[in-house]
């Protein structure tokens, strides 16, 4: 029996996972010349934050946060994966935090094969069969 089926979650449907905490680091961080929040700046080098042009890697980040923030003493990764909001279309264009159905499927497959939860999560999101292949491709990760 699929873990997803256990949770009764269908593709494109919204679940009752806890909402993600807001990220608003710009409030207190200094800004760079382009008005972006700075994590650090020294003599022309910087690490800034730019939320303006989300891509497939941002979508991967959102999906990952959705799942990892969910896990706590009362919710296992299995529970969270089974209850995750599934993206109705392209993850990068989603209006709400979500994960592609393939994440759930790949995770489920790995779990059924005896893989431990964290390793199954790693495999499903970041592995060769990543549920966000566009992110993996953009990052230039080779199999």
């Amino acid at each position: 029996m699929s873990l997803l089926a256990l949770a009764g979650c269908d593709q494109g449907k919204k679940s009752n996972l806890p909402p993600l905490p807001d990220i608003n680091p710009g409030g207190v961080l200094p800004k760079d010349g382009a008005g972006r929040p700075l994590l650090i700046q020294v003599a022309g080098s910087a690490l800034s934050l730019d939320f303006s042009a989300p891509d497939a890697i941002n979508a991967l980040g959102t999906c990952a946060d959705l799942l990892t923030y969910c896990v706590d003493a009362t919710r296992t990764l299995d529970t969270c994966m089974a209850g995750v909001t599934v993206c109705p279309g392209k993850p990068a264009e989603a209006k709400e935090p979500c994960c592609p159905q393939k994440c759930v499927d790949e995770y489920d497959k790995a779990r059924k094969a005896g893989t431990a939860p964290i390793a199954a999560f790693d495999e499903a999101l970041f592995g060769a069969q990543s549920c966000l292949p566009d992110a993996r491709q953009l990052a230039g990760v080779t199999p």
Partner: protein
Amino acid sequence: MRILTALALFAAAPALAWESTCRTYANFDAEPAQLTAPTACAPEKGPATARARWVGPGDEHRRLWEKTRELAGLPETVSATQLLTVFTGPADVTVGGRGLPSLRPAAFEQATRTQVRAVSVGELTQLPDWSYSLFDWAEGHETCPLAGSTENPEDCHDFASHMGPVNANHFLPLATSFYRRYHALAVARAQECAQVQAKLAPSGARFLVVAQACELEALALEAVAQHYLQDAWSMGHMWQRWGSPNLVDFPGATAEERREKAVVIALVSGLMHGSRSVLQKLPGWTGYDVNDALCAPNPVVQLSHGDLGVTPAVGDNYLGALSGFGGGAYDPQWQKLASCAASGMLEVYRASGELHGPAAPQGGLQSIQPGSDACFSQRATNRAMLAAAAVNMRVGSVQFNIPLDARTVSSIVPTLASSAGSVPVSDGTRHRFRFDLIRHVSLARLHSAENPDGTEVAEGGLGQFLGVSPNGTYASAAELATYVDPPLPWPAPASATQAVKDRSTALARLFHRAHAADWCAATDAAALQALKTHASNAALPQAERDAACAACVEFGVRHLRVGTGPVVYDTAREPLCHFLVPTAAFVYQMGTAGDDPVVLTRQWCGCP
């Protein structure tokens, strides 16, 4: 495009473990407590730092050494400023745009200048933050020992662009390997010192200073070793930072590609380590209290250790928080660090024969094998590693904790200083950086939730970052780094490689009194004659003649018998080399029983 020195912003702070400092003083040769009128080193890298004292605000490593010395009960005299006379050649070196006389030791019979290096042993605990190794310091930071780099000495020693990116050896478990290597060198050298002292016993206390100089050199090696031990007990270093101490181990087709990768990794490592050292100085941050984990006190930051269990800990910039420094907290962390450090120091001091006076360790210390797991098995917990992935600061009375979670790190844009100004890293590097960092922080969050007191994350369990392995991969390499100090003896035998010979010779020339036995053996009749010929050359410019005479006297007196020749000389005043080397060469100079051998040697050298 060449990456300039400032590109590794994050790297600068993280690399400095417990803090190190560099200052120039008007009275640079004074005792540490008497140094006055400090000025910050400029530039704070390369040859300038080799000429300075590493004493002043922020010298946490030195303070740890001095506290350890007190606990181990070594006499205060081992902390005194040593003045090392170096015989150098005619070259100048660029220091902050100015040409200054080189500090590189030259062959004694070719000395054209003398320079004085002033240092106390405890300062050398900061050496790995300023130098690649002790021979690098001995050579005045005037070369670039980092294989794969061809930059000038100042760039080569720039912390942000060169030393920081390869400082994975300041993090566990690689720090263990470096401690063991240097501690073993220190003990071996101390044992040589004991042999020297045994040979000198028939001379009474006449040459005790020679054996004591040797002991201080052994302790100098231990000071370098203890940098890595001290780092191992700084909370920000209790995890497997990715990377190697060798630049050539990083992936890339060119040195610049390897360095770019090394720098980006250093940025992330600095983030995890805690970035107070860098952020606190920035204009936008000076009004904040950047209390950034892992080093800053944090309610969820703890170490896990076989004996100590799970216990809170702090690191760089927060030495004063330790119980041993008046902080009244983090006592388990301090007690274990203190016992490990004191045990290591005592092992060296006892091996050399306690030549500055008997050690009287204070009560309460544990005797521990200093290179054992008891001193190096501590690791940050998974919960601590998750807390590391954040920027923490207090603004007024409000504490801000900005999590570097998967969404946040997916939006990072790294830009690097370059010859063309500030430029973004390549798209390929940026995207891979974001992807790998998302994976890291996500897995850290899951491990923290599943096993908060576990150490899977700190043990390198998350694998590679940007194609670079956690530092434990490099911990058992036969050659830890291309720039580590050479094996004893110094100078090296003729069968050694040229690099080992060059490096060991530089060390033996700097610590030439400590190496009196080696030089007594190496200085034959021809070498003595060469010293004399150089010194007696009245055609030399005065300054060069002075240097030549100083070298001739320094080494000649060790071989000088007072008399007319092998048959008639004062056997009650045998010179140093008589006791150290049975086959030593001798020179002879007539004199009375009351004549100072130094004065007689000066006469023999033909010096005015």
